[in-house]
Structure formats: C-alpha cells, structure tokens
C-alpha cells in the first residue's frame, strides 16, 4: 500500500474517500429528489448520468473504487484496531466518554455495505445488463418507471428506510470526523462540523422520504 502504510495516512485516506462518497450522496439525492415532483426532470438527469461518456467511463469507476476502497480500508483498520487490544476489558464504559455512533462505525458501515449490495442488485446490475450486455436501444424515459416499481414492495421499502437510518448514524460521526482526520480543527471547523451533523441527518431523511413517497403514492 506504499504511501498509505502509516496510521495517519490510512486515516486521511479513509476520510477523503468518505468525503468523496458524501459528495456523491448529495448529488444522488438531488437527482432522486426530482422524482418526487417532476418525473421528466428525473428522467433527463438519469439519462444524462447513464449515457454520458465522462460519467460512465471515468466517474463511475472512480466511484466504485471509492466505495470498495472505503470499506476494504474500513475492514483493515478494524482488524488492526482489534489486534491493538488483544485482551479486552471486563468492564468498559465507552458510553461515558464517547458516542455510540463513533464506536460502532464498523457495524453501521456493514449495514450500509449490505444495503449497497441490495441497491446494486436492484438498480445497478439491471442497468448495466440493460445497457451493455443486452445492448437495448437507448430509452430516455424508462428511469422513473423503474424507480417507482421498486418501491411497491413494503419489505424492500422497509429495508431501504432502515438502511438509511444506519447511513445517517454512520454519517453522523463519519462526516464531521473526517475534518478532524485531515487536520482541520479550528473555529471554522466547528461551523463545518455542525453543517456535517445536519447533513448527516437531512440527506438520509430525504432518501427515506423519497422511498416512502413512492411507496405510498403508487
């Protein structure tokens, strides 16, 4: 791993990949939100993202790499951290000095990862198959319908809602904490951290809203 062999480099890499995913999440959310008021806009955006060469050939691989990097690194760090305390405490009161979310990033992360699996199964794999394997003709209006269809099932909608709750928990610590990791901790950082906490709740809540909106409106 060369350059990321030190603990601080790993921590910064974790933060930067996380920040990148947070950024992507914001963009994803913005597009999805349009589905609740304008199926046309949603279709336009989706079509653009799904067919633009730059997005498909460059941003998409970068994003996939970012996701894989973030969770692989997360697992590596977790393994190292566990080996840093081989004998555990009989009594350990973590809640007196730190938040539950900060101590359980690995678990909230695993849930989000599992969700990503579901999400890829639902949208990404069919999409890739549709476009590149079956090589169907381009259809700029299919996206909204595909989206709505997925949220018919109450089980799936429930799973999505639950996953977003975990995403919120993950982001609640992760987003704000990434500033500290990259060394940004001063009076401006305090404002930014507040923004990060709000973002961590609002964006997943928004996703939940979208899921429920489509579930109950169709």
């Amino acid at each position, binding site marked *: 791993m060369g350059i990321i062999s*030190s603990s601080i480099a790993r921590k910064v890499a974790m933060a930067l990949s996380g920040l990148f995913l947070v950024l992507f999440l914001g963009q994803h959310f913005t597009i999805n939100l349009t589905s609740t008021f304008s199926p046309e806009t949603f279709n336009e955006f989706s079509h653009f993202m799904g067919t633009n060469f730059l997005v498909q050939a460059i941003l998409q691989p970068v994003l996939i790499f970012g996701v894989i990097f973030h969770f692989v690194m997360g697992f590596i760090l977790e393994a190292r951290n566990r080996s*840093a305390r081989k004998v555990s405490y009989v009594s350990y009161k973590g809640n007196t*000095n730190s938040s539950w979310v900060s101590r359980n*990033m690995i678990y909230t992360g695993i849930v989000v990862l599992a969700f990503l699996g579901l999400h890829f199964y639902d949208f990404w794999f069919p999409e890739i198959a549709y476009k590149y394997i079956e090589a169907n003709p381009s259809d700029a209006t299919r996206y909204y319908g595909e989206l709505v269809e997925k949220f018919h099932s109450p089980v799936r909608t429930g799973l999505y809602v639950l996953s977003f709750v975990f995403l919120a928990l993950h982001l609640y610590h992760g987003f704000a904490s990434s500033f500290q*990791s990259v060394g940004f901790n001063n009076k401006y950082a305090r404002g930014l951290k507040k923004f990060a906490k709000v973002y961590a709740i609002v964006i997943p809540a928004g996703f939940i809203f979208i899921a429920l909106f489509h579930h109950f409106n169709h």
Partner: protein
Amino acid sequence: MKLTLKIWRQENANAKGKMVTYPIDGIEDDMSFLEMLDVLNEELIAKGDDPVEFDHDCREGICGACSLQINGEPHGPDRLVTTCQLHMRKFKDGDTIVIEPFRATAFPVIKDLIVDRSSFDRIQHAGGYISVNTSGNTIDANSIPVNKHDADDSFAAATCIGCGACVAACKNASAMLFTSAKVSQYALLPQGQVEAVERVENMVRQMDLEGFGNCTNTGACEIECPKGISLENIARMNREYLSATAKG
C-alpha cells in the same frame, strides 16, 4: 464505607490472569483511591497473601505513574484527575469497584495492575526533542519572542503526563493523543520548526511499530485525559504529517 473490589490478578507477563473479589471495610471519604488499595494490601499482607501490585509514585497527579481502569474508565469516574487524586468520596457505601490494568497490546501486563508503558518512551526517543547541544552556548532566551498564544498552547500540549489513559480509553487502543501532544509542543514553537518534518514522521512511524490502534475520532481520549489534552493536537499532528509527507 464498605466496598467490594474486583481486581485483576496476574502473576507475571506470561501467566494467565483472573479477576479476584475482595471485600473491604473501613474506607473513609478522605482517602485517595490508592490509599484505599494500601489498606487492602495491609490486610492481604497480614493474612499472608501477596499484595496487589500497582504503579504509583508522586501521588499528586503529575508523574503519570499511576494508571488503573476503574469501573470501565481510566483513572475512574472523576474527570481531570489521575487515580492517585481520585478520592473515595466519589464512591458510595456498598459499591462494587472493578479494577483492571490499562489494556493495550502495546502495554503488556507486568504483574497484576502494572503494565509496561515503555512503548511511549520509544515514541519519544524517535523524535521527541529539539537537537540542540546542552552546552549552554545558546542564544539569549529572550532573543526569540514567542507569541503568548502559541506559548500557552505549546504548554497546554506539554502538560501531558504520559500516563496512557488515552490509550486505555480508546476503543482502538490508539496513542494518537499522546503522540500528538508531544508533536504539538514542538510544532507550536519556533525552536521546533527546523526538525518538524523528521520529527512527526519518526514519531508516527514508531507509534505504528509499537502496535497501537488507529484513531477513529471517538474523542474518548480527550474526555478521559487527566490533563485535558485537546483533540486539536491530533488534528495538528495530522496536518504536520500531511505537510511532512508532501515535502517528502
């Protein structure tokens, strides 16, 4: 005051340890936590048992020798104190107190509650200094004015007593708060600038070699630190490290 103590007993580094329960009576509010253990040890000696071994020295909160994970927290439930200054008035009659050594792979147990914290020393050997000769042929102390704010921040970082509570509290047994306090003390002073790049690289490398965990910013270290060393130091060290890496 009557208490039940559950204490980790371990003969030596290689032995298997276990928790042992000791009832104790006659504890007074004014006693320090270590004085309470003194009372227990006197009883154990009188009974012909081996006393409980624990690290301690100055008993005024500055040498950093005392440790102990007390009821799941390093230096016990009180804030901004070391175990030697934790007083029994913080406990109630009838309480059960669980006493364990600081746990970290980089802090192996020596005996009972004593752990080996020489990993901290090795981090400091790697770069915790400014390379000036001790000849006394230095420039006048007042020839480099230091901004009071920086001097105060440097002092605040330098108040670290090297007790290891940060490692003990951290769920990852990370030594970032300790190392960053040492890095920050020098990073904030003009005298420390010359070797800034090598210092942070060498100290972080040693910290990693010792087998401490990674920082995940839970903030437990800052809360449990008996000297209130701030997380800002960790951010500063990250910056220093990044700029050192950038400079190559």
